């Protein structure tokens, strides 16, 4: 409580961290190595948790700390570990082999970021940036961009694990939107969402495992028996 | 039906029965003369009928009751049609039973049964004749209807008595283009319907060219007589239709004793003239191939259509 809560500062801080998350996301989209991807993904939750904590601090919203901790624990620590284990155990190739090559992916990601800003424009109120109650609202553009880039990654990834990874990174955008726009959903909802994410990761993990057993491959583009 | 109309009916009936074979005889002898032959004599059709009626008959063992019914239907329908047309007086005795449409359809009824009779024996000639007869009749029908319509539209009614009265009222009507065209169309139809050259040859018994004769090949004796007689009545009906609608000169307006003899004379004269025309056509043309007949009838159809168009053009 020594630091005086200057909303202006908070706003800058949040924007900076949000921008970092976005950079990481684009880096993921453009990066070639699977393990690196997982690691980058592992860094994102730290930034997100920080954003949550910052907003919670400036708005005196203690439940955001809770959300921050949950995110950190779940997405920052548990999920990356799990994924790395899967990668180790399955022994899949390290290279990602996206459908669209890396430079182009990066360009597409840039375009999607642009779109994020276009969408968020109607919500953008530069004058209100300093007030604590609208702190972080301007990160909506980042959130939308994160979401879209994550979505793009899902399309762009061949392997089941990488698709899961992309899905989770897409949800990071959601989280950012939730904390920055609304300072977190009501706690029950927040808990439910986390629980669902957890179960979803488990479900997808089991599926990945079974698919590998059944197909001897993690390449989901080979799953094309069901047509028409 | 009152007794007043019964007498004319009986008279016309008698006239029909009597002069129908005669028309055939006249035409036969005229044809012979045109071909510089002597011919069989004008009364030959009566002799033929007499002979046929007198003879016994052989019914095909494959035939059913229909075989026997057909000659009666043919005969009766022609006869009834004859009572619906004006012959010597504009007032046809049974014109209130039906106009020109009824006449056409009654003749159709006879043809229908005759064709069935042709099929009934099981002989392939009968079938062949029925098939060709029905085909030609069907193709002649639209031309006939158009011509009939032209006449009916002119008179404002399909009732033949009304038509005849209307015709009497307008002298020199024939020279209206519509009437001439309609007459031409109907003449072609008449030739087709009565089975004359160039459509059919009533005198042939050559397998491949027979139409009407093939159909009735299995008939003999009195049945054949009825069919022949019926056919001659039909021919007379159509000819009468032609002469009295298009050339109503001398036609007595009603069944009044005064006008009748003159009317009868006129009637016979007109018939003779028409017979001459038909015979002229017969002798100057060769029989057509069956599949050329539709072309002829198409000509008739076009004539009929033109007739119709000219009723409101001129």
């Amino acid at each position: 409580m020594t630091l005086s809560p200057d909303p202006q500062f908070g706003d800058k801080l949040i924007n900076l961290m949000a921008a970092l998350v976005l950079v990481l996301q684009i880096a993921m989209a453009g990066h070639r190595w699977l393990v690196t991807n997982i690691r980058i993904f592992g860094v994102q939750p730290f930034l997100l948790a920080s954003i949550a904590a910052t907003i919670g601090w400036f708005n005196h919203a203690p439940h955001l700390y809770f959300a921050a901790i949950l995110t950190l624990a779940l997405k920052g620590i548990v999920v990356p570990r799990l994924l790395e284990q899967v990668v180790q155990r399955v022994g899949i190739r390290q290279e990602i082999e996206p459908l669209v090559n890396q430079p182009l992916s990066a360009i597409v990601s840039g375009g999607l970021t642009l779109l994020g800003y276009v969408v968020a424009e109607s919500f953008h109120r530069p004058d209100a940036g300093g007030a604590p109650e609208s702190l972080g609202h301007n990160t909506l553009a980042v959130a939308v961009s994160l979401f879209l880039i994550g979505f793009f990654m899902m399309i762009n990834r061949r392997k089941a694990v990488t698709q899961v990874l992309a899905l989770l990174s897409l949800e990071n955008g959601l989280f950012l939107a939730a904390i920055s726009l609304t300072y977190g959903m009501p706690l029950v909802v927040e808990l439910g969402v986390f629980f669902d994410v957890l179960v979803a990761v488990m479900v997808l993990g089991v599926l990945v495992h079974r698919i590998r057993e059944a197909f001897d491959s993690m390449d989901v583009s080979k799953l094309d028996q069901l047509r028409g | 039906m009152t007794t007043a109309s019964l007498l004319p009916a009986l008279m016309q009936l008698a006239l029909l029965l009597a002069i129908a074979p005669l028309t055939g005889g006249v035409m036969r002898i005229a044809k012979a003369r045109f071909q510089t032959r002597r011919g069989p004599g004008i009364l030959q059709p009566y002799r033929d009928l007499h002979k046929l009626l007198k003879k016994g008959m052989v019914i095909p063992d494959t035939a059913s009751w229909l075989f026997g019914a057909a000659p009666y239907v043919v005969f009766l329908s022609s006869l009834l049609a004859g009572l619906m047309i004006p012959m010597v007086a504009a007032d046809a005795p049974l014109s209130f039973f039906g106009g020109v449409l009824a006449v056409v359809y009654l003749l159709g009824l006879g043809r229908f049964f005759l064709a069935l009779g042709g099929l009934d024996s099981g002989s392939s000639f009968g079938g062949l004749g029925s098939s060709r007869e029905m085909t030609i009749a069907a193709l002649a029908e639209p031309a006939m209807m158009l011509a009939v319509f032209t006449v009916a539209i002119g008179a404002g009614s399909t009732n033949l008595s009304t038509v005849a009265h209307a015709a009497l009222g307008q002298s020199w009507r024939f020279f209206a283009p519509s009437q001439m065209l309609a007459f031409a169309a109907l003449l072609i139809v008449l030739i087709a319907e009565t089975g004359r050259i160039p459509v059919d040859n009533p005198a042939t018994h050559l397998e491949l060219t027979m139409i009407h004769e093939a159909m009735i090949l299995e008939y003999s004796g009195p049945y054949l007589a009825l069919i022949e007689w019926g056919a001659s009545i039909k021919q007379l009906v159509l000819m009468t239709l032609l002469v009295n609608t298009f050339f109503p000169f001398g036609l007595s307006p009603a069944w009044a004793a005064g006008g009748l003899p003159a009317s009868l004379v006129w009637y016979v004269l007109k018939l003779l003239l028409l017979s001459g025309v038909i015979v002229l056509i017969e002798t100057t043309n060769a029989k057509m191939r069956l599949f050329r007949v539709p072309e002829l009838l198409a000509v008739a159809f076009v004539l009929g259509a033109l007739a119709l168009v000219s009723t409101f053009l001129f």
Partner: protein
Amino acid sequence: MILPALFLVPFAAGVLSYLARRRQQMEAINLGAFALTFVLAVGLAAQVVRDGAVEALGGFLYADAVSALVAGLTALVGLVTAVYAVGYLRDDERNGVLGGAPQGPSPHAKLRNCYALTPLLVASILLVALANNLGVMWVAIEATTLASVFLVGFYGRATSLEAAWKYAIIGGVGLSMALFGTVVTYYSARALPGADTLAGLNWSVLAARAGELDKAGMRLAFILILLGYGTKAGIAPMHTWKPDAYSEAPVPAAAILSSAMLNCALYGLIRYYALAHRSLGDGFVPQLLILFGLLSMGLSVPFVLVQRNFRRLLAYHTIDHAGIMVTALGIGGALGTLGLMLHMTYHTIAKSLLFLCAGNVYQHYRTDVFHDIKEGVIRSMPLTGAIFLMATLAIVGMPPFSLFQSEFLIVNAAFAGGHYLAGVLFVLFGAGVFAGAILHVGKLVLGPVGPEVPAPRRPWRDSALLAMGALLVAIAFWLPGPLLALIRSAAQVVAGE
């Protein structure tokens, strides 16, 4: 106390079944629970008809007529499929279909999965209908996906896993969009008093003050929700998981997915429609809905026409009907929403019945490809065949079956509302789907006597079939007064009148 019990009963049944050791126990638990659920749902409906909307747990659960209708339909489908499932799964077990891969789960484990997951699925669907908070509703809808992924992958075949994967991934993306929409909605409601409490995302609160919502926010939220819950409902072009999932899931589960779960996704959409429409007015929201509805209807036509597999055919039918209902929602107004609610009711009954019929055919012939069945189904299975044909006629909107009534109301509403093009396309696509369905099912059901032996008696399956079939015929001619009242007030809730 009906409200919490309604979803807790199947939830408990799911947990208990997972713990149960013997098949008979699982069957008994399922049957009992679903029967109880059905009774509770009817009780709830009666209460709602009588008293209007009810709340429980301090407003956490809320049931108005729409909720009661969706819950009631879910419970009905649950009960009927539970009866059917007993026969179906026994048959599967007898025929060794559950054997699976050597290292996969044992047949018993599979059965347990099925018997545990089905009630959980139903429980989450019921929670969707009963949750007042839109966030909780999202959680519950996500839960339905999670509960059903393994149902889709039940048989463990390569194709089942493929279907399950697609279902999970596409569903995951869809629900992320829906969550995003939920967040944006919450954001749009920030100006409302009490926005920062749990009740801030309660539908009953939002709906009452929908006019005060942030318009730009609601617009974005609606797009995201439409795509998100639309994915769950299988609206084109987010429909692609549907044929795969429906044709691979065990038939009782497929029946639930195609009727109750569709309703639940539409339910989510309907709730948001009410908010967005009240906030944004006519124009954007209805147009978007009509556009996607017609796209779904139109896109299902070619697939229905050239379909080779009857379970996939039914899936495309569901896409078509999702489109119909979304179009109806877009057309809106008193008539459109009434048509929607009626259609939801009728479709639920007819579609679940169709899946049950398809299940019988599939189990008897061991194939779901039209071409492989050379004889007329009606010859070896008269009851199934006759009901299959009847239900097909019903689902394509052939009178006297009641789907005609609802579709008629919808088209009528379209014309009355000036959506002429939509009305014409609606009818056109309807005719296309009709042609396809009759072409295929007519050939499947009717035909010569074949070499196949007549099917043995199947008491569980046939009684489920008969019950549902009788219901389908009955509602064609007569809708009970209270049910009609429920449907009408549900329509009023949506139309906001």
